[in-house]
């Protein structure tokens, strides 16, 4: 359960104050598939950073599973990210010289889980995202873009997070592989009941979600249930 109350984020340079987010409030329930959509400069990246506990708002409150994240210290934020959030990035951010399996296990290195368990978890999630088992011991830079992004999704899933945050996950992929990746998110949401937040500037991508929050100039301009959903 995510609850944002009057979130404002202000960036200060020496002369100018920019409000990246202005009084943004919304609630996302567990198991929802939400797209946050907006053109560049709309504040969606800033919102993602706050939702992902990478940053804290200048004012307002952000409750994540009942915890006020906006007041946490840097190390406490790291714990929230480790235990509750899985990130998927536009540029995958895999370790290039490590195997697929090691990349997926990476988040577990920072929690207290035995090696065997880690490997089991990693294999399970890799199968869930539909990656061929033959690829598990390949180096990540030998994979295709679509495969890389599915490895990244597996990495986001491996710590069994309450929230998956995907930042333009199809931005570096062609339409067809992008579609496969988006379908993966849909399956995770519908079948595994993960909460998924998709950040994108493309309407077609946003259309995959059940709910679309549109941002412009740091404010929510639209918050609709997506009726056109294929399911």
């Amino acid at each position: 359960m995510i609850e944002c109350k009057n979130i404002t984020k202000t960036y200060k340079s020496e002369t100018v104050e920019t409000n990246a987010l202005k009084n943004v409030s919304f609630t996302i329930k567990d198991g929802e598939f939400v797209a946050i959509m907006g053109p560049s400069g709309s504040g969606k990246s800033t919102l993602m950073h706050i939702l992902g506990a990478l940053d804290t708002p200048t004012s307002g409150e952000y409750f994540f599973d009942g915890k006020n994240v906006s007041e946490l210290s840097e190390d406490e934020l790291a714990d929230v990210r480790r235990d509750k959030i899985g990130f998927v990035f536009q540029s995958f951010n895999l370790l290039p010289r490590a195997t697929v399996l090691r990349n997926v296990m990476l988040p577990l290195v920072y929690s207290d889980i035995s090696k065997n368990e880690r490997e089991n978890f990693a294999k399970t999630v890799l199968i869930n995202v539909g990656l061929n088992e033959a690829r598990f011991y390949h180096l990540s830079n030998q994979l295709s873009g679509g495969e890389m992004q599915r490895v990244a999704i597996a990495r986001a899933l491996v710590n069994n997070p309450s929230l998956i945050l995907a930042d333009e996950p199809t931005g570096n992929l062609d339409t067809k592989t992008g579609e496969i990746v988006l379908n993966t998110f849909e399956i995770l949401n519908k079948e595994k009941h993960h909460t998924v937040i998709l950040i994108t500037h493309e309407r077609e991508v946003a259309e995959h979600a059940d709910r679309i929050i549109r941002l412009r100039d740091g404010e929510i301009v639209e918050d609709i249930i997506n009726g056109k959903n294929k399911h």
Partner: protein
Amino acid sequence: MKTSDLFEETYSALMANKSRSFLTILGIVIGIGSVIAMISIGQGAKGTIESSIESLGSNLIMITPGFQRGAGFQVSSGRGSAQTLTSEDADAIGQEIGSIKAVAPEFDGRYQVTTKGTNTNTQIIGATAVYADVRNIEIDQGAFVSDQNVQNSSKVAVLGPTTRDDLFGESSNPIGQTVRIKGMEFKVIGILKAKGGTGFGSQDDRIFIPLSTAQRFLAGNERVSTINVQAIDQNSMAMVQEQISSLLLNRHKISDPQLADFSIMNQADIISSASSITNTLSILLGSIAGISLVVGGIGIMNMMLTTVTERTREVGLRKAIGAKKKDISTQFLTEAVMLTFIGGVIGVFVGWLFSLAISKFGGINTSISLFSVILGFGVSAIIGIVFGYYPARRAAKLNPIEALRYE
């Protein structure tokens, strides 16, 4: 983060860029290796000097003319005064001072020595029969100078093994043959056993003749150049030294001990002054080598800073998936320490090989102590921490959002 994970991460990070890791390690290997080798040379020199001084004889007190003792160093009062001791002084010491086992005055000088066809310039020592005991001289063949020889001022000579080799050829037996010293014929009556002292004044290249002969035919006076006194035991050394000093001051009619025209040294003095020289040598050599270690450390820092910059996105990712500042800094610090530690291990080994090679081919004794090995490991680990700290802290302080955006 578990320790085993940390090492796995470190291993794969170092293996990711093998040539760079290798070159960085090489810097530390050279640094630690040269520190180990240089210290071993210093320690070896110290050992050599101390053992050669100890081989001079036990409980030995040496009185030499013409030197005034100052604090920590000796100043020669000049050539004219350098002949202030006589045989009578030696006799007086023998007669008037207790707790003495033997008194062995000597006269020495360098003279040209010839035989048929060969000649050499060597140290000629005029000695008495007790000299052999006092100064640990051992005879290989024949006999040492006897009391009889001294009484009669016989022209007899006892050759050191090196001198024998120079004059008569290696391992020959020249007993009964003659050598000419300063134009006078001396009959060879004995050969010394080799002492094997090298480098700092060989004790094998010398000729002993009776003291009286040396004084009469070589010096032309009653002067002696050193009076060797052997005390009965270690405990009486200080007392004997004191008594000799006052006796000689009295005999030479000098009231102020500061103006004494002789100096008295015992082995402990010689060893401690020689040790202080070799310690200085060790420190000098070690610090020159230490400079290369610092340079190696700077190499580590350079590599780590490059690595941190290159892996900015990785740091961003790690932070995004839950790594804390501490996790990041520990990871980079471990990489740095691992590099220096591997360098340290190889460096100690290389230094050890190097010092073995020096003692084998360079003829200088070396000794590797446990201390220098531990020092090598310790210093290399510390270098890793010191020079890895700044890059690691820089990595840990990266903002995850900016680090993820870094191109």
